[in-house]
């Protein structure tokens, strides 16, 4: 990222960030601002480190977090994974591939929108795919094992 832009994003907070960025001409009016990338979480090599970076504590196992993924992935380089949360006021959904070199694969802040996301990820080997849902400040989780015949990381 442009170092000036990074500095401005770090210094300014909340609404003031928008006016600071507009003033520099680096951002068009109306362009959505993304949250800063969770470097600590995405570079964690251990599942519990990744969970800590999400702030996930006292996770509740829930059948209302539904993971849709194949039982056996034909190609570890492209594993379709969808997560649906039936928990009211879902704020975010995170997806973890527990045996990947860097387990945290993605996080989605859904800002009160529909609690559903679908994507495709790389899995290095057979592993639990874990979804972590944050709703009303509490954390819920579910796992599904996905068998991988040909690993997709290298």
């Amino acid at each position, binding site marked *: 990222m442009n170092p000036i832009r990074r500095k401005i994003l770090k210094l300014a907070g909340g609404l003031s960030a928008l006016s600071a960025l507009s003033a520099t001409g680096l951002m068009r009016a109306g362009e959505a601002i*993304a949250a800063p*990338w969770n470097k600590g979480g995405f570079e964690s090599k251990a599942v519990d480190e990744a969970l800590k970076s999400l702030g996930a504590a006292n996770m509740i196992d829930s059948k209302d977090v539904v993971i849709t993924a194949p039982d056996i992935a034909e190609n570890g380089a492209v594993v*379709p994974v969808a997560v649906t949360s039936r928990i009211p006021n879902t704020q975010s959904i995170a997806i973890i591939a527990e045996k990947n070199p*860097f387990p945290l694969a993605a996080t*989605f802040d859904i800002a009160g929108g529909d609690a559903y996301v679908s994507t495709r990820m790389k899995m290095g080997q057979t592993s639990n795919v874990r979804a972590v849902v944050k709703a009303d400040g509490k954390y819920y989780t579910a796992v599904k094992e996905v068998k991988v015949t040909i690993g997709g990381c*290298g």
Partner: protein
Amino acid sequence: MAEPMKLRATLQGDTADVRILIAHPMETGQRKDSSGKIVPLHFIQSVVVTHNGKTVMDGQWSQAIARNPFLGLRVKGAKVGDKIVVTWTDNTGDKRTDEVAVAAGN
């Protein structure tokens, strides 16, 4: 600028089913090319989706998301003609924005 995304937003009832296909190598930094050299880390870190200007999804990715990434989501309270805008940013600072209007479903 990077290659355009393929975007589709189809209304089903009052919910738009949004499908996004992005052209991007999503390199893990672990793959070797044909000459044996490591292909450097190159992946999308952020994907933001807005509906009529309001953010409906702010996604962060690792290099574990598959090459030519797919993202599917649903937007409640949508109408035909509503604007869905998708912006991605990668670890090199490259970015791309595309938009689609919600179309009527079957």
